[in-house]
């Protein structure tokens, strides 16, 4: 149970906030958010200590320390512990940057907002843990349902509710499609345990179970297997906003309350990628023969990057622009996913990119939140002359924009570097994909720095200084520090991720 500490913290946080919701309104909620942040902070610190302990113990011993009835569907290994801690960190950051929002904007149900964030983070952590199809699916569903509700929290705003409705309907459809695929996979193998599935599908031949089930064709090239896997790809593609399953993303990001958008842009996406790592890269990847999902995902990956970046150039609403930008970032990470031939490079690349992405996206959104708390709008002209009204916000944006665009020396640069390295590896040789990626990175500079131009070089109508709220200010500071400090820490992170990925590869 020791290594389930982050999940326990998150669960307790959610329940606590639910109880707090009974007697807490307005101002008080900001205080609760702050408490929540400190709990998360303590949890992250403890989680990191546990992580060190777990690495020291090794995966087997760590597993043995966990009761069997949990270890059967929950992987208790260093990598999953790391992702749980990351979920805890995301939750903490979200508590921080939504502090002013719950205090001032959301006067009706402030604590429920915090509870939903905690439960969604719990879902992310559980996704990272799951090694059973059922558990994995329900963890993802927990993230999704909390997401639908978070985006509809402003229930007197038509746009917020519209976002919730769209998110819900499309999410439910893709969940149903994914479930259908899972049912096929279960039917062919008779198992839901991912390790059994890996042996059945991944080794290039179906298990004896499948033969017993009366399956005639036994290989990972079996059309039914491919159908099942691709249905799962659709569901996961929805979670990470892969083109063409991305269409909910800009609408939801624009309509949802800004702190919810900030959370949605990192939380469910991280969950989706962790699920992709577990399911696609580690389970449904035969060690011999072609990988059934690789070809479609390869094309969609190039499409995702390009569409995201190109359409982002035309956006004037910052939330919408960041939505397309996050679509593009999914594309970059997908490069590493399709380069799974070089697993020892691809897995750490995904881990690195996710960490960098969480930090820089939370930071960029916190800037948007800080301003929208005051101005109440997010279009690009609201940012005119920001460098005079609040140099802190403007300079922070420049750093986050650099990181998002992949300009050194930021975390985003190293993330991109590793992703492209994975694609260029000798075992993969996806040169064209790397070229597309680099060209996209160049395009992205344009729209990120367009905002910077408005901040620095365009005179604004309003000139009075902005007082950045406590929560948003701290969130920006923390992610700023992360974006920059992480760079010197990368050697350790990468060696950890590499060793963890090896453990996971053998898992």
């Amino acid at each position, binding site marked *: 149970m020791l290594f389930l500490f982050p999940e326990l913290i998150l669960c307790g946080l959610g329940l606590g906030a639910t109880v707090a919701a009974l007697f807490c309104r307005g101002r008080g909620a900001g205080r609760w958010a702050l408490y929540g942040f400190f709990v998360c902070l303590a949890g992250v610190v403890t989680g990191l200590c546990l992580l060190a302990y777990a690495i020291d113990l090794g995966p087997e011993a760590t597993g043995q320390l966990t009761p069997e009835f949990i270890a059967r569907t929950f992987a208790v290994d260093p990598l999953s512990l790391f992702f749980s801690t990351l979920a805890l960190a995301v939750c903490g950051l979200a508590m921080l940057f939504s502090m002013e929002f719950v205090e001032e904007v959301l006067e009706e149900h402030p604590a429920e907002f915090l509870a939903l964030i905690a439960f969604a983070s719990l879902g992310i952590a559980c996704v990272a843990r799951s090694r059973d199809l059922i558990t994995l699916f329900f963890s993802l569903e927990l993230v999704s349902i909390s997401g639908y509700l978070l985006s509809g929290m402003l229930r007197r705003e038509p746009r917020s509710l519209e976002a919730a*409705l*769209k998110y819900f*309907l*499309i999410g439910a*459809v*893709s969940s149903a*499609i994914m479930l259908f695929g899972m049912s096929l996979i279960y039917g062919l193998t008779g198992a839901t345990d991912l390790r059994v599935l890996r042996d059945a599908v991944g080794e290039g031949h179906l298990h004896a179970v499948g033969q017993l089930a009366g399956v005639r064709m036994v290989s990972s090239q079996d*059309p039914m297997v*491919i*159908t099942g896997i*691709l*249905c799962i*790809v*659709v569901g996961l593609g*929805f979670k990470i906003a892969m083109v*063409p*399953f991305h*269409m*909910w993303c800009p*609408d939801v990001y624009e309509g949802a309350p800004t702190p919810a958008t900030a959370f949605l842009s990192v939380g469910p996406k991280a969950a989706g990628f962790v699920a992709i790592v577990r399911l696609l890269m580690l389970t449904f990847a035969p060690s011999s023969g072609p990988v*059934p*999902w690789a*070809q*479609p995902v390869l*094309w969609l990956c190039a499409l995702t990057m390009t569409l995201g*970046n*190109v*359409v*982002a*150039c*035309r*956006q004037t609403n910052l939330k919408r622009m960041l939505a397309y930008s996050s679509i593009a970032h999914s594309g970059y990470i997908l490069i590493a996913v399709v380069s799974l031939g070089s697993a020892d490079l691809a897995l750490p690349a995904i881990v690195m990119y996710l960490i960098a992405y969480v930090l820089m996206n939370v930071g960029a959104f916190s800037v948007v939140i800080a301003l929208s708390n005051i101005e109440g709008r997010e279009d690009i002209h609201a940012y005119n002359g920001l460098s005079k009204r609040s140099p802190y916000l403007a300079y922070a944006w420049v750093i986050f924009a*650099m990181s998002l665009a992949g*300009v*050194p*020396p930021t975390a985003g*640069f190293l993330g991109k*570097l590793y992703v492209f*390295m994975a694609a*260029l*590896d*000798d075992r993969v040789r996806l040169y064209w994909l*790397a*070229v597309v990626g*680099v060209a996209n*990175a*160049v*395009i992205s*500079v*344009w729209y990120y*720095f367009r905002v910077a*131009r408005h901040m*620095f*070089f*365009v005179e604004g109508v309003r000139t009075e200084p902005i007082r950045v709220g406590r929560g948003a200010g701290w969130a920006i500071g923390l992610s700023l520090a992360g974006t920059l400090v992480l760079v*010197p820490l*990368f*050697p350790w992170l*990468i*060696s950890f991720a590499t060793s963890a990925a090896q453990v996971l590869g053998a898992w």
Partner: protein
Amino acid sequence: MDLLSQHAYLIAVLPVLAFGAVLLLGQKAPGRGAYLPIAALAIGTVWSIYLCARIHSGAALPQGRLLWGVGSTGFYISFLVDGGGAAMLTMVCSVALLIVIYSQGYMRGDAHYSRFFAYLSLFSASMLGFVLSSNLLLMFICWELVGLMSYLLIGFWFHKPEAARACKKAFMTTRLGDLGITLAVVALYHEAGTLDLRVIFEKVAAGGLDTPMAFWIAMGLFAGAVGKSAQFPLHVWLPDAMEGPTPVSALIHAATMVAAGVFLVWRTFPVFAATADYALMPYCAPFWVALIGGFTALFASTMAVVQDDIKRVLAYSTISQLGYMMLALGCSALFAGLFHLLTHAFFKACLFLGAGSVIIGTHHVQDMRKMGGLRVKMPVTFWTFVIATAALCGLGIPGVVGLSGFYSKDAVLAAAKVAEYPGEVAVVLYGFGQVGALLTAFYMTRCVMLTFMTSPRDAHVFEHASETPRCMTVPLVVLAAVALSGGWAGHALQGFVEDHPGYRIESAESWLAEHGQATAALEEAQARAEHQAHRFVELVSFGCILAGVGLGVALYRGGPERADALARKPVLALLHLVLVNKYYLDHAWAAFVRVVVRFEIALAFVDYWVVDGIVRGVGWSTLRVMRWSWAFDKWVVDKVVEAFAWAAGGLGEVLRQTQTGSVHVYMTVTAGVAVAGVLATILGSVWVFAGLFGVCVLGAAGWHAALVGRRTV
């Protein structure tokens, strides 16, 4: 190895600390932010001179010392100090130091005074880091940082719309070149498995890089250098970058950042050399370097001829001089390229600071047409400017003595003369350089004439002009002294840049030796040929410079009007008479010339054809052609850069139409693509998939369109 050499990387770290301190303390920092960067750079200057001395005495210095690294992945940060690097360090530190001192005067009273010094400090740090690194990762990081700081500094006066436009243009244009360098770095990592320069060069020397790949890597690196060093066709940003404060122009756009591209080519030259198959020119990377460099040298200098803004003249001149450096590198004359880089940094910084001094002295006048006669009002500025101009022109007495530019430019031209390219190519390259030198002399003379000599054209400006404060003139004098004497250190410099057992020269040389070009007899013959070429070049250059200066003096002695008239009415016959005989006359004379011309005095024909043919021909055609090429620049090259941005935007506009807002369309596309994807994957054809996807998207769009149509009806 002593402590100071071991920790040479601190030279780059000190300005970072200064940056942080100034940023934190703001106006409360010592000297309102100026003193900390000055101290950091002064320490750096002394330190790097010490390193030079150590190298000169033959001591071994750190090579690829590890500071930070990721085990087996080849990503790490390490530094090295070799001869060329130490010389660069000295140059960057000292020029930056002088410019920071100078900025105290130039930026006086600016609202963001301390922020300016913080930026300058961080800029110097990243430039020093770039020079110090022995690893492409750190090099690339510093390279981008340098670009970013340039963006912030050009746009420092962001309330000027031109400045805001210019900094964006600079950033985007250089990013276009960085596309190449990114790909090259990635490809190099892929080919060599590391980003450590020494290991890469060892692999290259061992023939570990196949030629086509090496060619493309070299061209990628060169693309980055073309962007940063403002070579044709990416040079467009540099003249516009003059909207920034003048010390920024001096530091970034004359001495350091633009030289980073040249230094990159210099540093990675073994990769270029690996493709040096002079018989197969299209795949010979140095050939392209030489060609682009030589062409830029000529091209930019012709444009400088018609500029009226004093800083723009210098900007085009910088582009042209960077072209010379590239030309030298392309001709495998590594020392000549670096030598010219170093001397150029000093005299060009001096020129820019002089221009800045003029601008401050005349209360922000930049148009040379409104100046004239300033030598009286600003003697220190004038004399330093003249010395730097003479250095830039390469003035000197062949075989005896000369200013710094004399030595370095002649080294470049001699290298072009003896380059191993086939006959015609070598002649063309050399010709580019030589004609460029003539034009350089011409336009710089013009600049000096219009600014300092002649009689004042704008009485108001002239009367209010005054010499600038001490903190601005002292750096000018120091820089002028170096511009005057810097060339004399050439031999010593050559000694320690080339003789130092640095990996770079070694591997390039050993590569060349392996390919059989350097047997003893050949070497001797080559040395003799080089010596002769040097003599020849010196003499020709001397002639060219004299011709250029003479031409300039002849045309501009009376102010710009005559040249304007020449440009406007080129065919009129008797202009030459006026020019040759009466060039010291002013407006009245010009009017008289027009009268004379109108009556077509027959006597003039002799002089016209014999004496002034050159003046007329060269002067007119240069002016004319250069107006065209400037227009080409403005309308064609600029537009291509803009088109790149807008093409992406246009595609985005089309694609965003697919985001109709209808949840049904979204769900249909989701389900449709799922079905189509399954079918296509099972049928095993990507094209079926693409086709089905297209049908689905089109169907959904058409369906939506039909629906919208129905609803509106």
